[in-house]
């Protein structure tokens, strides 16, 4: 066996979605539509010998070419049977399978009850079909409204011709065209055949609705898959069923980068239910297929049992030796040394010499894992040189090229069906699981296999949010105004540190940022609100420290820093929108009217085009002795109760109020869960916390009340909500803890400083 070199694995910088990136680079040919009537459909989705076909089952009796279907674009199909809207992007829990079709439906002017929504096939005609960077909403806003309005325009035109009246005299509502003066009306369904004959108008001739006329956008709409979810119907990637399906597992080296020396394959192959076992040397790309041993069996349980009995001798010469405890020690020295100076404005040294009122804080954050509740999985079939995949992925189009490479075929031979994801959080931006399934299927041709990662696989081979360390110094002048800021930080390689456009750039005259990279072998990548999810905590906690050093109210200092209304840093954050959020959140939370025994903390953060302020109301218990933390330190043990979090968010107009509110509430819960007790540590290259017994997320009893206020001035386009409500939570809670008891938390998770949630 040839040996691939994995010595540079830690140098691979995973592709991270940037906020300005909207176009995927990989496309595939349009998927043929499968024509099914309801009986056939039920048979295919049924219990015996069926498969989960939702990804390419359009409205029944849709016939694309015979003139009975009105389909002016790939998003809308109307025929005598009904109205079908295609949801283009992956659904990962962010609600786009409901909210994006709502944009279509609003401009199409259909009654929501008349609409059936299906997941679109993978087709470049849909534009960038991915879920990441909170981009689905902003990138869909123009095209989907255009698609809906275009279709409406053509339906009106068809009615005008039918009735021999001017289109200007017609109106639409609830899937009907109406002619008020003659009291006539006709349904879109009845118009489908005629509308199909109308030429598609140019974009310039299409008018959008005045938002005041919206009937659907901004309302509370229950998710389109909710009925299927509460019935337990096949829906997610893991639910994929196919005739003669076999079940696969894949064991990689626990210290990432290790290669297979030998394995007890003969023994494993003799186990009950095991069909095949073999070694994959990997593709040489750590984001695709790492070396390991695959097992194919008759059931998931048989495959899991075989994986447990598998004994592999690993060559760990080039494998990870990552050690978090050593890194923690090393970092204390790194932040004492000058790093790569990425920002240096004004005269920082002079500012610190001239102003005696200063604060200093050493912040650190551990690694965390995405841990979506559906462990990574992918179903694949390799047959006659072609590969078909059924995958829960955030980036279906990006995964097809790598999957093709893993199977050793051209990408044109790959067909991908996108399925609902049981959570994403950034993990499913990366398609290593899809590549593994492709490579395993190649080794077992003609039979569909479902690759199933265990929870331990899912956490151990995650692409983590990296840890980091910040030494912050700041100074304030006689009036308590922040005049100097120095952030020296060390973060894991692959992360470039705080960008030059981040807070408080442009708000503090004398600002210096220095960065040092720390080498790391385990893969790190985008995790919900990348960068912002940790920088928000560090920066917005330290700002509170400076407000306190200056003897001033935190909200006042925050508003002073935001200053006059302006757009910062080549677009992006608007200080006026930011200030409005800070004012509303603090007002609603009773900032100037605090309850006895409660602490209040505020934080604002701008990320993913969302302006969001949060205020946490907490109480902290008395010290209950000491407890030993993960770093072996003895720290004082205290309880923390987060009673309420008040959120003010300006993300432009709200598409689905129910979904939007749910995203904010969920982000607050995720933010609290992550800041309190989530940490991944590494020793000898191995992840130490690999399941939920040691990676303990927040439960219902600890969930605070979350009050959400949306600001919409009517001047802006909508932006996504999967991420921006996450970053302000941790600093708001940290600041509230200080307000409650005078103790400053500077470590994520705060259980490292003795806090536990009640």
């Amino acid at each position, binding site marked *: 066996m040839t040996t691939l070199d994995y010595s540079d694995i830690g140098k691979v910088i995973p592709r991270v979605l940037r906020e300005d990136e909207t176009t995927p680079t990989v496309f595939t040919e349009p998927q043929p539509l499968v024509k099914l009537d309801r009986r056939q459909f039920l048979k295919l989705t049924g219990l015996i010998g069926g498969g989960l076909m939702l990804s390419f089952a359009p409205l029944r009796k849709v016939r694309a070419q015979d003139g009975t279907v009105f389909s002016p674009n790939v998003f809308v199909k109307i025929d005598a049977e009904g109205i079908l809207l295609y949801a283009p992007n992956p659904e990962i829990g962010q609600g786009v399978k409901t909210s994006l079709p709502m944009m279509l439906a609003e401009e199409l002017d259909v009654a929501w009850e008349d609409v059936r929504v299906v997941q679109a096939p993978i087709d470049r005609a849909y534009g960038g079909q991915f879920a990441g960077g909170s981009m689905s909403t902003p990138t869909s806003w123009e095209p989907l409204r255009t698609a809906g309005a275009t279709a409406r325009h053509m339906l009106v035109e068809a009615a005008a011709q039918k009735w021999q009246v001017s289109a200007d005299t017609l109106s639409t509502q609830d899937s009907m065209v109406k002619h008020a003066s003659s009291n006539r009306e006709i349904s879109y369904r009845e118009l489908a055949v005629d509308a199909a004959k109308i030429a598609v108008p140019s974009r310039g001739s299409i008018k959008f609705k005045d938002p005041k006329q919206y009937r659907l956008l901004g309302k509370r709409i229950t998710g389109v898959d909710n*009925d299927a979810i*509460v019935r337990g119907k096949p829906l997610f990637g893991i639910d994929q069923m196919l005739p003669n399906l076999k079940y696969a597992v894949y064991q990689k080296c626990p210290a990432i980068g290790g290669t297979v020396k030998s394995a007890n394959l003969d023994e494993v192959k003799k186990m009950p239910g095991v069909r095949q076992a073999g070694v994959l040397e990997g593709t040489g790309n750590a984001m695709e297929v790492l070396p390991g041993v695959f097992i194919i069996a008759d059931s*998931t349980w048989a495959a899991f049992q075989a994986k447990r009995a598998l004994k592999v001798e690993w060559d760990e010469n080039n494998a990870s030796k990552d050690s978090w405890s050593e890194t923690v020690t090393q970092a204390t020295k790194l932040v004492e040394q000058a790093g790569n100076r990425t920002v240096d404005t004004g005269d920082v040294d002079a500012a610190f010499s001239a102003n005696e009122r200063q604060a200093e804080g050493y912040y650190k954050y551990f690694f965390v894992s995405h841990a979506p509740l559906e462990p990574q999985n992918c179903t694949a079939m390799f047959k006659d040189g072609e590969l078909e995949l059924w995958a829960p992925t955030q980036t279906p189009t990006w995964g097809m090229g790598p999957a093709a490479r893993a199977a050793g075929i051209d990408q044109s031979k790959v067909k991908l069906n996108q399925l609902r994801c049981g959570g994403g959080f950034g993990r499913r931006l990366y398609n290593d699981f899809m590549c593994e399934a492709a490579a395993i299927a190649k080794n077992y041709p003609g039979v569909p296999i479902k690759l199933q990662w265990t929870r331990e696989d899912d956490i151990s081979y995650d692409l983590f949010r990296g840890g980091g360390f910040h030494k912050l110094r700041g100074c304030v002048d006689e009036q308590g105004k922040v005049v100097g800021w120095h952030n020296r930080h060390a973060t894991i390689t692959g992360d470039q540190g705080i960008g030059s456009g981040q807070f408080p750039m442009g708000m503090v005259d004398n600002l210096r940022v220095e960065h040092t990279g720390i080498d790391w072998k385990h893969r790190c990548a985008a995790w919900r609100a990348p960068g912002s999810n940790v920088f928000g905590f560090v920066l917005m906690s330290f700002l509170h420290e400076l407000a306190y050093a200056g003897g001033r109210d935190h909200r006042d200092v925050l508003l002073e820093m935001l200053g006059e209304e302006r757009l910062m840093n080549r677009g992006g954050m608007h200080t006026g929108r930011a200030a409005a959020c800070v004012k509303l959140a603090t007002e609603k939370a009773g900032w100037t009217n605090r309850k006895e025994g409660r602490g209040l903390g505020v934080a604002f953060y701008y990320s993913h085009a969302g302006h969001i302020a949060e205020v946490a109301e907490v109480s902290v218990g008395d010290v209950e002795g000491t407890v030993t933390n993960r770093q072996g330190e003895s720290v004082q043990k205290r309880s923390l109760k987060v009673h309420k979090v008040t959120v003010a968010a300006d993300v432009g107009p709200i598409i689905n109020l129910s979904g939007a509110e749910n995203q904010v509430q969920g982000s607050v819960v995720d933010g609290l869960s992550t800041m309190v007790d989530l940490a991944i540590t590494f020793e000898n290259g191995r992840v130490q916390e690999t399941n939920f017994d040691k990676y303990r997320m927040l*439960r219902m009893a600890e969930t605070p009340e979350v009050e959400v206020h949306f600001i919409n001035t009517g001047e802006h386009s909508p932006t996504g909500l999967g991420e921006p409500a996450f970053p302000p939570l941790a600093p708001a809670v940290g600041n509230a803890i200080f307000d409650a008891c005078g103790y400053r938390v500077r470590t994520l998770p705060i259980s490292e400083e003795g806090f536990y949630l009640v």
Partner: protein
Amino acid sequence: MKVSVNNTTHDLTGIDPSTPLLWVLRDHLNLVGTKFGCGISQCGACTVLIDDTAVKSCIYPISAVGDKDVTTIEGLASDEEELTPLQQAWVDVDVAQCGYCQAGQIMATEALLRENPNPTDTDIDTALAGNLCRCGTYLRVREAVKVAAKQRS
């Protein structure tokens, strides 16, 4: 070996008796509404009822079911039936984000409401303490439980 699931008796001849109920449901009976999350009884995505008790099917060997009745999410309302008030509450409150944990949350609630038709917040928190929601929909789960309790009473 036989097992009764959603009022249908299935012959499990040839299946390893140590196989957890979860995988029998998913791989052998094609009842995939019950989800795999952790495999060690920590997340509750695999929650089903055995008689009236909520159990984590990922660690419950099929051989231990015996002549008891298993109810899964698919057993609440069949495809052709209207949703039960419990399921309808989940739709009306729009609980789900990704939706992956919700079958487990619903089955844990079914067990709770069978035993305690009018649960307090604390009762709900305790009954659902074993059910993780990675998306953080707990506030809506709690609300839906209350709506369902009201509808059933």
